[in-house]
């Protein structure tokens, strides 16, 4: 929104232009005039103008208490002449009356003719003073602090710290290693009392559970012993803690943050699809943190979704394709397993086959699934609806991340409506082959014995569950962090998964498995529509999908971008 003010642009003309003056105000930052929309916070305006002002307590999604005093700057208002109009200087711009005392920039909105000096000697001296005060009682445990590397104290120490300490006294002792709740650990000596976490709990999580006790330099952040920090958003306090006071009990001491590779993705634990950053090292995921997207999740995500990645690293992962030989599943090469599965399916006509697909599959996978169903002539296809308690914040009652995709791509019209037909068909023996894609059929009411009685039971999944040993072919696939692809969240936003780690063992990307299955069955690479090209990459899947579904017209995986694209519904801003 920043509009650079051209040098020759006359201040009065700007003032006179009603369209401009109605929305934009002129602000002088470090001697250069800029324009900002009314209501812009000064600290944000300066950042947009390229003058980042250091801050601890300020967070743009929370109220401003102005308590850290790090964002002190010099400020001035236009000097008013006797006619109550701003006096203009030689350059035709207002003369600024500088205030003698420094002001905080985090609680001030821009106003017409406001002047700011963000880097003057006074402003620098103020920051140095605040830094010294913050550090005197702060422990020097950076080498073992989880925040090291992404700590604001470290960051601003580079510019405003002193090489030597002149603090000769004993530091204030405070509690350490406090379990504030099941997921958050607190070190009060590291806490700089910025109150971000308290405000988050009050204003965003609506769970007023944190507070300061005691007074002065002895003030301590805490929760009442009878009521812990255990709401489903508690780990956001760790994200916004500018220092290492609040740490995630899950991530604590697991990995130095500078070794983490960061991949932009989104959470697949419910239909909200909170945007995330996945932190990985050497194909292991260490943490998932929220990424700002004001159309989806603001800057937050729930703990349930955040911590729901451990299963990707579980020893239950299926690592090897398997086929039934005699009465035992044995490991097989991929081409053998795929052929095996296709041959099994060829024994049956469309009415004898059911496909159990999943609302956790990507659009690309769902599109290929619907192609598979078409080739097989299958009508008995559905996904498993997945409900859970939701809240008014982010967590949706719909725990499938891509139910919308399943509906748009024609895999199911009324999710779950045909599950009964599928189970009845299997129980009665009308259905002789079941293809389970990322779902466990036992969870929809079938028994192991019923599955074992099926002449063909092809499973594509991540984890070994109790149905696996009933399968006639097992095709191990990828989890959300291991693949690329798109999903449509509950509010109609198309978002993109990016690969952050490689899949384990022999597991393969789902779209490749589905394509190969189609190819093995039909002998063609998705040529049933006699489209040219075939499918050689996930981009090909998306392109072919977008040709049949106008919702995706003009898009590609790369065009979805990091923040997604609204393809239906309205943007929900939080």
């Amino acid at each position, binding site marked *: 929104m920043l509009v650079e003010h051209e040098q020759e642009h006359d201040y009065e003309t700007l003032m006179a232009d009603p369209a401009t003056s109605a929305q934009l105000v002129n602000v002088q930052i470090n001697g250069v005039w800029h324009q900002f929309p009314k209501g812009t916070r000064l600290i944000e305006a300066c950042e947009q103008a390229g003058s980042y002002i250091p801050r601890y307590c300020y967070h743009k999604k929370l109220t401003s208490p*102005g308590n850290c005093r790090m964002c002190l700057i010099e400020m001035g208002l236009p000097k008013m002449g006797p006619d109550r109009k701003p006096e203009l200087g030689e350059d035709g711009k207002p003369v600024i009356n500088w205030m003698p005392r420094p002001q905080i920039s985090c609680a001030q909105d821009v106003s017409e003719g406001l002047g700011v000096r963000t880097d003057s000697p006074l402003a620098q001296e103020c920051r140095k003073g605040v830094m010294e005060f913050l550090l005197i009682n702060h422990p020097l445990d950076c080498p073992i602090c989880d925040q090291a590397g992404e700590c604001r104290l470290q960051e601003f120490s580079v510019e405003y710290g002193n090489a030597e300490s002149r603090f000769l*006294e*004993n530091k204030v002792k405070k509690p350490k290693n406090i379990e504030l709740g099941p997921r958050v650990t607190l070190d009060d000596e590291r806490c700089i009392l910025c109150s971000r976490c308290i405000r988050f709990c009050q204003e965003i999580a609506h769970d007023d559970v944190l507070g300061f*006790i005691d007074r002065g330099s002895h003030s301590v952040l805490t929760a009442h012993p009878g009521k812990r920090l255990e709401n489903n958003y508690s780990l956001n306090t760790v994200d916004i803690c500018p220092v290492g006071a609040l740490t995630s009990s899950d991530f604590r001491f697991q990995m130095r943050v500078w070794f983490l590779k960061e991949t932009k993705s989104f959470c697949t634990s419910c239909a909200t699809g909170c945007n995330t950053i996945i932190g990985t090292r050497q194909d292991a995921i260490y943490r998932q943190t929220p990424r700002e997207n004001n159309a989806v999740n603001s800057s937050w995500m729930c703990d349930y979704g955040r911590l729901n990645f451990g299963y990707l690293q579980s020893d239950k992962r299926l690592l090897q394709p398997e086929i039934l030989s005699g009465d035992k599943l044995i490991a097989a090469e991929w081409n053998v397993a795929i052929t095996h599965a296709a041959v099994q399916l060829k024994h049956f006509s469309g009415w004898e086959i059911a496909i159990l697909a999943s609302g956790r599959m990507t659009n690309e996978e769902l599109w290929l699934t619907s192609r598979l169903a078409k080739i097989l002539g299958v009508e008995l296809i559905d996904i498993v609806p997945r409900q859970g308690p939701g809240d008014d914040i982010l967590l949706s009652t719909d725990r499938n991340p891509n139910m919308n995709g399943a509906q748009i791509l024609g895999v199911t019209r009324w999710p779950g409506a045909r599950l009964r037909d599928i189970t009845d068909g299997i129980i009665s023996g009308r259905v002789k082959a079941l293809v389970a894609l990322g779902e466990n059929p036992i969870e929809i009411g079938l028994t192991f014995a019923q599955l074992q009685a099926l002449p063909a039971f092809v499973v594509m999944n991540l984890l070994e569950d109790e149905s696996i040993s009933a399968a006639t072919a097992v095709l191990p696939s990828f989890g959300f962090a291991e693949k690329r692809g798109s999903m449509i969240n509950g509010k109609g936003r198309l978002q993109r998964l990016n690969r952050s780690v490689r899949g384990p063992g022999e597991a393969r990307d789902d779209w490749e498995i589905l394509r190969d299955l189609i190819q093995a069955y039909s002998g063609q690479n998705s040529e049933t529509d006699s489209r040219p090209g075939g499918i050689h990459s996930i981009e090909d899947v998306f392109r072919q999908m977008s040709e049949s579904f106008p919702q995706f017209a003009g898009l590609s995986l790369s065009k979805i971008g990091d923040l997604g694209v609204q393809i239906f519904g309205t943007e929900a801003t939080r």
Partner: protein
Amino acid sequence: MDPTNTPISAELERKMDEAIRRYPADRKRSASMPLLHLWQEEFGFISDEGVNWIAAKLELQPINILELVTFYPMFRQEPAGRKHIRVCRTLSCAMAGSYQVMEKACAATGIVRHRDENGMHNPISVSEDGKYSIEFVECLASCGTAPVCMVEDELIENVRPDSAANLLTKEGRFPNRPPTKTDGGLETAAPWKTAPHPLEHRLIFKNIGREDWTPDIDCYLRAGGYEQLRATIKMSRAEIVNEVKTSGLRGRGGAGFPCGVKWSFIKPDEKKPVYLICNADESEPGTFKDRYIIHEDPHQLLEGILISCFALNVKTAYIYIRGEFPEGAQILERAIEEAREKNFLGQNMLGTGFDVEIYLHRGAGAYICGEETGLIESLEGKRAYPRIKPPYFPAVLGLYMCPTIVNNVETLCHVKHIIEMGGANYARLGRPNNTGTRIVCVSGDVQRPGYFEIEVGAVTMGQLIYDMAGGPRHGRNVKAVIPGGSSAKVLRADEKFKLRLKQSDGSMAEQEVSLFEIPMDFDSLAAAGSMAGSGGVIVLDDSRDMVWTLNNINEFYAHESCGQCTPCREGSLWMKKITDRMLLGGGVVQDPDTLQTLADNIAGRTICAFGEACAWPTQSFVEKFRDEFNQRSQKPVPPPMPPEYTPGELIDHKKIATTPLPRNPGWEETATAGTI
């Protein structure tokens, strides 16, 4: 713990419900402190059960209550002894021997006090038999009768260390005034019942100290009480505000802001409710004027408040009285009831159709509640964290985010006299821009400490100290004066000041004056580099060690910093730790400079004026008594900890001590200096 199992008597619950009704129905949280007081009165301390019970009662989270219990030192989380003694630790009392009082009282009760180095509040020490407990508290606002103690709720004045044991015989309930001259071997003389000095001009204090005066409404009515309120209700609101504006009245709480200007911030057609808060949280060390108004002439204050309420269309006024005035609170509660009986407040006040209520709200020992936005937060039932301004100017976004006027006790009393005299007549008292009278409190090293009401600027510092307060003790000379409460910058007795003063021919001219020639008004004291503040003059004679004095002041501010914003929270304690160390003989040569720069890094950079309040003493003491500070700072600076990381450019700049290596490591080729 199940809060429903607590044995709460019906009577206690009735009192609690009554307290809750004093606040708007959707602002129950405001009743947190009253409920905590009631709980502690009943059970002696605030148990965890109490925290949970009160939180449940007010539909709050337990942490909301725990935050308060630990913020306000008067709330205890552990039982005290059956008789609890508070000894004032702050400057005037400390100068008069309160540390010796503490020592003797501990000896008499067998209490062994442990000063926890890392403690926040002064600890409460209980005797082994549980009969007595004792603690140091910060300024009890009776500096004129220092040293003072409180036994339970009773104030004991002029406690001589050698008679400290007599404290144990005190009942602990406040007696019916007037007090006896000698009270169980503890003298309680000045400034009770002394005649005004000829240099005084008494308006507010006309009835203070009178033998024939009682704080009840009949006595007040006999002396023409509430006549000004009756006169006011015949005036228009604009007229009243104009009279106050014309009077030039400046706030008497410390900042000296023009009262009429403050009032005019309230829009006449304001739609939101407007609140008036009387700031009776008198706690600036050296100041003890409001105490006497509250205890001896409460109806004068009520009349001032009611006039102001009428002028500003205020339907609800709160008096925020400091927790250490339990007797004053009781007197004011009674006075409010008396005034209600006579319909000076309540529904349809004096038949005007105007409904007005005054409620009392007790603090619990936090100096920061004297800051108006801290006070408002405290009244809302939160920790007294001052608000940022902008945007939270009380006149716009004050109590419950409604327009609010916060005025000092003395200021509100002046309003009554402005109505009586007329604003223009009132403005003739005093000097231009420094109108009216004000009460000056003198304590410290003078022979007759006490309160004096003077025409602003009509008396010089010399007249005040020598003529009115009797001058320094025999054989002593005045060394320095803190002129406006302990946060005001200290003035040396031998300093010269350049002031613009009225000459004998009536013209104004710049003139060099000594400390004792400074007129006691806002502008002159500001021109002398200090401030008139809250009118608390603390005199220091030549026996005083300035490092000790500053340390006492630093301890007060370190204890009272609310801890909200960084510079004050960290700086006030750091300054105290430095002066502590200097007193213990550990001063290093850099200490005076460190103190100076620390204070510079606090003043003007904090949310509220506490930053200045805690920085100004250090800035002025170190600057003006540098030789004394140097004397105590002679040790060499210890070498810095070996840096783990020494960038080359720092070594070049000699910022970090470098150590030569025993052998040449052969690093010259890489252009380093051969040192680590």
